[in-house]
């Protein structure tokens, strides 16, 4: 029974709970037991909230018992990346500087998730301030990939991806600035959805790069991702960059027709450095899409190669300003024994931030400095405009674009830690979409060397329904999403 529960899709769990075939409390307990057993191996969570989970589950059961209506995610055990503020629950952003920070307010995305009935399991690990592609930049510990405990889960939403892939949580929230939802989803063999910039409120999301940050969903099926998106998306007056639209009804669109959809395959994404296994799996995936009746055609997005450098100017520039508030004055880590104000600032930040954060703050500060602003920040903004325009033009001819999500499968822990440039290349296929603010999803498209490969589908702004319909059709046609890591390896099975 238990085994049956923890890998069930969220939408199935919600339906069974709603029909009272299983209690929300039982679902929560099963997941908490599994979490307790596997967490020492995976280290996906920074903070777990078992009491809150059981309490929320009991509330769902009580409501059902009274015959009251419950939300679409009632009883679904969910995890949340630890850069989304949760009222009364420590929120660290994976940083020493916020190690003991307990927010006095709830982020819009999580508030909506709980209102839909989801059960809060805890806060997942991430690269410090979401800066990284392996979750090794967490100030606390690295998270391991459920498919191979010697490998990284990707990042920065590595904890969320690992938790969902391992069946600790039925769904999770992450955040995607340059690929931080899609890339770990690809490396962990789950679905990772980055919505259109502005579709999900950023209120309560600890900012990394405000013009790029977007809350995303990690789930095991496309339908689950659609369900969670519907719960958290839609205009929020607390976020001035939030799109003036309601939540998209993607779920009902999932079963629609994909025949005749025009699928573009940009050749610039088939990089030299693309792993052979990835190349093969994604090529097979595109054949599958063609077999479903999509009209596949190669296309070109010539400015793609400038996306990564532009991203590594713009994101650090915004980060250098966003992270300036961690000064030790009002909250967060304050160094003791400082001789004066400036010394307090310097010591607190030196002790509170990790190497990658410092690197990006310095990069960004430099890019914004007088005398360099035009050459770096302004130039990068121009590149961003070009890339956005290029996508716009492509979407005049295509409904959806298909690319690999990550150039490689999960890499060994420690392999890229000492080589930031190599680490940055992990984002090369996801960053252009971020600069253009487009919706994109990574869906599992098979294994290479026993490790998951992700297919990235990209759609025009606010076309999430079409995007997820294509992803769902692919999922249904292949069943790659049913592959499971060998975590339970007989020992844990009953």
């Amino acid at each position, binding site marked *: 029974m238990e085994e049956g529960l923890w890998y069930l899709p969220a939408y199935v769990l919600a339906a069974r709970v709603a029909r009272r075939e299983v209690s929300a409390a039982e679902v929560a307990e099963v997941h908490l037991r599994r979490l307790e057993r596997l967490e020492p191996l995976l280290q996906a969570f920074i903070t777990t909230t078992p009491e809150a989970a059981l309490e929320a589950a009991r509330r769902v059961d009580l409501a059902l018992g009274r015959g009251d209506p419950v939300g679409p995610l009632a009883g679904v055990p969910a995890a949340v990346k630890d850069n989304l503020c949760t009222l009364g629950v420590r929120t660290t952003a994976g940083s020493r500087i916020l190690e003991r920070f307990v927010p006095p307010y709830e982020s819009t995305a999580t508030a909506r998730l709980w209102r839909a009935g989801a059960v809060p399991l805890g806060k997942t690990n991430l690269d410090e301030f979401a800066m990284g592609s392996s979750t090794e930049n967490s100030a606390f510990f690295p998270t391991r990939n459920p498919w191979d405990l010697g490998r990284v889960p990707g990042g920065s939403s590595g904890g969320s991806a690992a938790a969902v892939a391992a069946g600790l949580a039925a769904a999770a929230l992450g955040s995607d600035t340059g690929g931080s939802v899609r890339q770990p989803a690809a490396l962990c063999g789950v679905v990772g959805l980055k919505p259109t910039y502005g579709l999900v409120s950023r*209120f*309560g999301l600890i900012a990394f*790069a405000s013009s790029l940050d977007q809350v995303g969903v990690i789930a095991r099926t496309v339908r689950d991702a659609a369900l969670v998106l519907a719960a958290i998306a839609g205009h929020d007056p607390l976020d001035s960059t939030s799109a003036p639209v309601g939540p998209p009804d993607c779920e009902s669109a999932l079963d629609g027709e994909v025949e005749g959809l025009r699928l573009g395959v940009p050749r610039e994404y088939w990089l030299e450095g693309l792993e052979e296994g990835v190349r093969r799996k994604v090529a097979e995936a595109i054949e599958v899409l063609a077999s479903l009746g999509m009209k596949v055609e190669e296309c070109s997005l010539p400015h793609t190669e400038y996306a990564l450098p532009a991203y590594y100017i713009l994101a650090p520039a915004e980060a250098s300003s966003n992270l300036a508030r961690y000064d030790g*004055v009002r909250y967060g880590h304050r160094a003791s024994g400082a001789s004066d104000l400036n010394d307090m600032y310097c010591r607190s930040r030196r002790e509170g931030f990790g190497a990658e954060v410092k690197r990006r703050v310095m990069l960004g500060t430099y890019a914004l400095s007088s005398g360099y602003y035009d050459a770096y920040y302004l130039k990068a903004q121009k590149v961003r405009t070009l890339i956005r325009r290029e996508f716009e033009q492509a979407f005049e001819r295509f409904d959806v674009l298909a690319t690999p999500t990550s150039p490689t499968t999960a890499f060994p822990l420690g392999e890229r830690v000492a080589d930031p440039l190599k680490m940055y290349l992990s984002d090369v296929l996801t960053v252009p979409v971020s600069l253009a603010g487009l919706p994109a999803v990574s869906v599992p498209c098979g294994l290479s060397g026993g490790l998951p490969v992700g297919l990235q589908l990209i759609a025009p702004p606010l076309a999430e329904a079409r995007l997820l319909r294509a992803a769902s059709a692919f999922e249904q046609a292949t069943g790659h999403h049913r592959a499971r890591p060998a975590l339970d390896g007989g020992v844990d099975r009953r």
Partner: protein
Amino acid sequence: MTSEFEPVIGLEVHVELSTRTKAFCGCPATFGAPPNTQVCPVCLGLPGSLPVLNLKAVEYAIRAALALGCQVARVCKFDRKNYFYPDLPKSYQISQYDLPLATGGAVEFLTPGGRKRVGIRRLHLEEDTGKLLHEGVESGSLVDFNRCGVPLLEIVSEPELASPEDARLYLTALRSLIQFTGVSDCRMERGSLRCDANVSLRPRGSREWGALVEVKNMNSFRSVKAALEFEVSRQARVLSAGGRVARETRHWDEARGVTFPSRSKEEAHDYRYFPEPDLPPLRIEPEWVEEIRAGLPELPEARRRRLVSGLGLPEYNAWVLTSSPALARLFDETLRLYPDPREVSNWVMGDVLRVLNARRLELEESKLTAEGLAGMLRLIDRGLISGRAAKALLEALVVDGGEPARLVEELGLTQVSDPAALAGVVREVVAQNPSTVADYLSGKEKALTFLMGQVMKRTSGRANPEVAARLLRDAMAGEGRAGSGAGPDSGGEAGGR
């Protein structure tokens, strides 16, 4: 020394807008609450918080911009000004850099040499910082974030002010304009109006300006003038001695009456401005601007025209009477109750302002009403109080307020006009000042003034001056007939003081 050089001054004025809530969050923007009681995650810069623009602040800014004759932008945007300071929770201030809300207006003011007009370069919206508190703190400082996020208007003049006095007059006229629009109370002592200045000098006739010096920390209209006067003569001294003026920021030390250079670290700021990604560009529809323009109240210039051509007041009076909306309102309402423009104008510009200044009160803080002032003027007309008693009454009307006739009773200010009641005092004064009486009798008419003063002193100013003077003359004439005999017409200097 200054005459070899001519100064040029530009002012950068910050005005706190009196919106109900802050610029980017819902916290109250009111002044004077206990520290850190008007704060929230947004204005404290907590992780994950986001700004939401208060459109009322934009409306107020547009109102001020229109009153200054500025061109309101169709599109403007917000930028981040990055620097570290404990009163700045996000370590950046949301401000406007290259696309301000409005540009290109002007402020006029009256100088003894006639009207002057100084251009407004730009006007933009930004957020205020918190305040550091040092009082009662043994070590370190405390921070009060109540003020943090209150909407601020920055108004930058062209560098066209020719003297410290012009700077003061500009500032007065600017404050009046803003106050008339009702978007700020512009109280310098509360910090709702703040002023920094840029000062540079050039030799007369030269086209090259010297280095620009920024002067900060001027906390009153008086200190603006004093600081600028100090700074102009300081620079002139440096230049006359063949030195070079350093480009720097200097702080005004009110107590010592000098400006001194601030630490160089503060100046080395590179604010790294960049567009605020949390706020989309602000589009301002022309229809909205026109709607705001239509709702503007009567501005000082229109009012001055009314006072000069409608009521026949001198232009100088019109400027003084429009120097604040409260003063203008007091004049208007008093005039309605006591329709003598000259008389009302004289009292408002003279004694009312003198009493307020002496007590360092704003008119709004005083108890003076139009009813009180008009009532006082009627009491004078009816001979019930003397001019001297009226000044005492005005003090009472300003400080305590109340009904003039009753105050006169309570303070014992009623004028004594009955000759029988004054006869005794007059007799005493004449008897006790024989030499002054002699002076008077020898033709020194001014000796009477001294004797009148004595009568007023002994009656606490209540004696009707006309009656008292007549009685004094009569009494001294009697003395004269009784004693020696020089006629009253023989002239000569007044004696007796």
